[in-house]
């Protein structure tokens, strides 16, 4: 996938930007807080219809529009899709009723919903804080799985959206039951919703992780000189296949990724589990098991990398996962996503840096941000285009 043109209006610190993107790697150079990251954020926003940094769309709109009667921001990208068709993807944030921001999405000028534009434009974003993939909490890894799958699979995004609506309702009802304001029999509808959406998430995560593990192992082998083996262990908080006694064993070994389960097999079992733990759920006021509590563990030679790994091993693992993510999306979508590297190069040692840059050449359209140009090999800079950014403007090549 090649994005040829990016256009921004009132997005972050860009009052107005028209930028033609080159085929070769694009290095965005500038001091901090000048707008390098905002450019990557804009491309991510167009792909995922949300920011990787904030859930509040208000923050995305240029501060100078604050006094405007109708503040808005507009992003658009022009590119050719895998069939060679010219596409214009446009997203606008418009203030509605002076209170909420409405997101308007247009593909080739026709208005669309978020679900309709899944996979139209795809990106892999790599940030220094992605080290939390290894060292962070289970929720960091769930968020990563959700973000990756949602860019590719509209059914996944829909189920995620459904679960994010149904779970708070179910939890609120659990608390109302505890306060004797509602009857346990009212739970059945929400149980079914949670089970139905949850089953889709569990099945798709399992499939994703099986495919990803293979790709990540290849990258990891190459990076570690084949001395180490990375394995992914998916531990759904609820195991669709385990019996009561089997549950303990499963908690240690995780779900067998190679026995693919389908949502229609998982849903009835998950529903039964929700009903089994109903009393305890009412007592604690939360839904105890489900995709919102899943864990993904990353093992190196059988040992948990997050707990026992060195900093270096963690960096290698994250790099392998990110490159595997790119390869997975490439296979799933039939075209290579854009690769956005935010200050990542500076964090890598010379060997990993060379490996990463070597992997990219000519394959993915790549945008990199940096505060210092001399971290790049002169031969890389000779191939790349460099733009200098200051105060939301491109000040020269």
């Amino acid at each position, binding site marked *: 996938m090649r994005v040829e043109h990016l256009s921004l209006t009132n997005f972050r610190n860009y009052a107005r930007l028209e930028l033609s993107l080159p085929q070769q790697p694009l290095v965005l150079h500038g001091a901090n807080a000048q707008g390098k990251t905002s450019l990557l954020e804009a491309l991510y926003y167009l792909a995922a219809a949300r920011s990787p940094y904030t859930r509040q769309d208000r923050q995305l709109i240029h501060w100078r529009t604050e006094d405007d009667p109708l503040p808005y921001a507009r992003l658009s990208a022009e590119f050719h899709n895998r069939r060679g068709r010219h596409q214009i993807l446009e997203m606008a944030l418009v203030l509605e*009723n*002076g209170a909420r921001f409405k997101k308007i999405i247009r593909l080739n000028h026709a208005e669309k919903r978020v*679900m309709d534009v899944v996979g139209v434009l795809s990106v892999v974003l790599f940030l220094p804080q992605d080290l939390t993939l290894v060292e962070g909490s289970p929720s960091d890894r769930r968020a990563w799985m959700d973000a990756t799958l949602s860019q590719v699979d509209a*059914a996944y995004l*829909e189920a995620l959206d*459904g679960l994010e609506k149904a779970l708070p309702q*179910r939890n*609120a009802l659990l608390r109302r039951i505890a306060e004797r304001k*509602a009857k346990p029999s009212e739970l059945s*509808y929400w149980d079914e919703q949670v089970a139905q959406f949850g089953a889709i998430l569990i099945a798709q995560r399992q499939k994703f992780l099986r495919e990803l593990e293979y790709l990540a192992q290849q990258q990891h082998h190459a990076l570690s000189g084949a001395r180490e083996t990375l394995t992914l262990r998916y531990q759904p908080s609820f195991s669709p296949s385990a019996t009561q006694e089997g549950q303990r064993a499963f908690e240690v070994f995780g779900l067998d990724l190679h026995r693919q389960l389908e949502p229609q097999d998982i849903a009835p079992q998950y529903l039964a589990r929700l009903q089994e733990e109903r009393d305890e759920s009412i007592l604690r006021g939360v839904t105890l098991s489900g995709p919102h509590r899943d864990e993904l563990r990353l093992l190196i030679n059988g040992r948990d990398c997050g707990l026992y790994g060195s900093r270096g091993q963690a960096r290698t693992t994250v790099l392998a996962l990110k490159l595997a993510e790119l390869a997975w999306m490439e296979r799933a979508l039939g075209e290579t996503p854009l690769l956005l590297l935010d200050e990542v190069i500076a964090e890598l040692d010379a060997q990993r840096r060379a490996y990463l840059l070597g992997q990219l050449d000519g394959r993915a359209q790549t945008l990199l941000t940096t505060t210092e140009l001399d971290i790049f090999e002169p031969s890389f800079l000779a191939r790349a285009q460099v733009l200098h950014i200051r105060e939301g403007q491109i000040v020269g090549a």
Partner: protein
Amino acid sequence: MSKAIPEPVTRLIDALSALPGIGPKTASRLTYFLLRAPDKLSQNLSEALRDLKARTRLCSVCYNITVDDPCPICADERRDKRTIAVVEEPLDALALERTGVFQGVYHVLHGAISPVQGIGPDDLKIRELVQRAQGDVLEVIIATNPGMEGDATAMYIHRELQRKGLKLTRLARGLPTGGDLEYVDSVTLLRALQGRNLMG
């Protein structure tokens, strides 16, 4: 609000801002418009506001908003009392009425089940519906909105009424008229496929 603005003005601005869809700017604009407009306009408005609550009540049969009890629809002898359409809001009944085809009567729930907002079945007119759905009643059409809350409400009503031996139906969901199959999203298309009709 600045001290330069007299108290009656800020009072109206504040009152208007409390309305849905009206922000402080629109509220000020409306207030200053009324200040300059002929007295008759604000008199009409204040009378209309007073009458709104004073002269309306809920119909004791269907719980729609009405002046006379029972409401004109429930009192109409030509309406088929054996068919009840259950809707969330009075405006939904109005929408069904605009089709000009529905000859039955309504039952207005005044909301939908939403535990997050603290709305349970007891906060809606569901118990009243269960009491009403007996005797001559043959069919209850559940016409709640096609979202999660509307579905939860429909499921609850279904469970409460299923042993009464009535026909329980739900509004079909599917393709919009004038739509193009190619552009319909997969959920809508799936529902339309599941709810397909036998021809002829």
